[in-house]
């Protein structure tokens, strides 16, 4: 297309060429303005709020450049901060273990059902995120059939329960972000030239070696994208911890939400939000660098 543009460009005069050079900026301008005002400026506001201290009256804060807010935030919510990354990491691992064979099956073993199965993978997305979480709460809860079956089989005692446990929170996180893992995995598996695998077989590699030395390395872009798309929202989530957990499973999202909306401690909440965001960005950059993919978007 760029050659086509140049081709017609030569027939026209200089002013229209200059116009054409500006065209991408005109196309980008509305979106950039929107993202600047409603994404970058708010982040700046968040940074400036994070060093403020309580003024006169509840909910009024003045700028005092108090960087100790960050230390306060970390010391008071260390447990929740670590728990968030721990749960997010576990959920990402489980999602990868569940999704990889699923994406593999759809990409290579589904024949003419491929597109239908792909729709079915995305389909749970169409049902409200909160409704699905509430459904899990009820399926695993006291009145649900899972717990009744387990008790009937004497696998679980009368006191045992599944909801309000770390297990339920991690399971909820895993379930809710599963399509974010499966879709990129599928996309990169589907792109693999099947002849590569055949060539590996021709060179006397068995199925396992082919999978390990050919399929997995070629699907790495999907693994990187999928793990990031699962880890990031999981680390900041508080719905699963709220609905499926107990007070001992609170994540950093719960703390930020409570500080903002219930306690009205804006600087503390802002400091925690920034800590979360910066930690995630550092982890993402280190991970991407290690995995060796540059183009993210």
């Amino acid at each position, binding site marked *: *297309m*760029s050659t*086509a*543009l140049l*081709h*017609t460009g030569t027939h026209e005069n200089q002013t229209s060429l200059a116009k054409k050079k500006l*065209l*991408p900026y005109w*196309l*980008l301008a*509305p*979106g*950039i303005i*929107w*993202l*600047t005002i*409603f*994404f970058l400026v*708010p*982040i700046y*506001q*968040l940074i400036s*709020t994070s060093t403020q201290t309580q003024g006169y009256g509840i909910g009024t804060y003045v700028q005092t450049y108090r960087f100790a807010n960050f230390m306060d935030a970390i010391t008071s919510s260390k447990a929740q901060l670590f728990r968030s990354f721990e749960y997010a990491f576990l959920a990402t691992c489980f999602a990868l273990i*569940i999704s990889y*064979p699923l994406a593999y*099956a759809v990409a290579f*073993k589904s024949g003419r059902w491929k597109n239908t*199965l792909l*729709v*079915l993978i995305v*389909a*749970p997305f*169409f*049902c409200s*995120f*909160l*409704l699905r979480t*509430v459904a*899990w709460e*009820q*399926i695993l809860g006291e009145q649900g059939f899972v717990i009744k079956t387990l008790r009937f089989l004497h696998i679980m005692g009368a006191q045992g329960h599944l909801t309000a446990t770390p297990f339920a929170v991690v399971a909820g996180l895993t*379930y809710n972000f*599963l399509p974010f893992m499966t879709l990129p995995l599928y996309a990169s598996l589907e792109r693999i030239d099947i002849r590569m695998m055949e060539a590996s077989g021709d060179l006397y590699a068995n*199925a396992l070696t082919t999978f390990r030395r050919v399929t997995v390395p070629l699907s790495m872009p999907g693994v990187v994208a999928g793990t990031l798309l699962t880890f*990031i929202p999981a*680390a900041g*989530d508080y*719905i699963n911890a709220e*609905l499926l957990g107990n007070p001992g499973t609170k994540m950093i*999202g719960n703390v*930020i*939400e409570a500080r*903002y909306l219930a306690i009205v401690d804006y600087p503390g909440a802002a400091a925690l*939000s920034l800590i*979360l*965001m910066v930690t*995630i*960005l550092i982890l*993402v950059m280190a991970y991407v660098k290690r995995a060796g993919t540059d183009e993210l*978007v």
Partner: protein
Amino acid sequence: MKQASRWFSRNLIRIYAFIGFAYLFLPIIYTIAFSFNNSTKSNLVWVGFTWNNWLNPCGAPDVCNALGNSLKIGVLATFFATILGTLMAFAMGRYAFKGRSVVNILIFLPMATPEIVMGASLLTMFISFGFNPGFWTIVIAHVMFCISFVVVTVKARIASLDPRLEQAAMDLYADERETFRRVTLPLVAPGIAAAALLAFSLSFDDFIITNFNSGDVNTFPKFVYISAQRGLPPQANVIGSSMFLIALIIVLMGQFVGRRRAGVR
């Protein structure tokens, strides 16, 4: 022996996939089943089958008000995000220009930022500018976080186009504008439609950012969250189930149309 193990491994992955899909759909099936539950107070235990919830989806207080708000916000946010995102996608997918990598980062950042950070920061800004959160602050927030997803989706479609099709149009004496209108745009259209569908479902389903920036305006996810504490009315299941079925039908129809078109060519 080798053949037997190969047969097993081939079927193992099918069995595995079946279990995987069962796991994916269990809560959906549960939600749909309990939309038919003849429950009076909380929808926790199966009482009996009834059509009443489906015949009277607005039966629970405030549920349809919340649904209406979510639909209005979803349509508005989708409209603006799709336009802004598509324009950006054309710039990113079609032109070389200075500052490209900066724009790339600006598009990537909202996707790499946890929702709670975006929700909290937007609220901080609205408060410090003396803006009362409400209907329009939700729309603004939704447009913001949908743009990046629209850009990525449409850009992928643009990148997959065969440039020869446009060259052919030009060779047949179509000028640039006509080529764009008659060739490029129709080819990119499915990508734009997919992006719009994605934007709508992201907006309709969003809770965290909405919860921060909604003031006292209720949306459907907010309604579910609030009533989940004291028992969800079956009408919420009816609405969730119908949204699920409508979206599924739209996607399957899109696939069907796509396949027919591909068949004709």
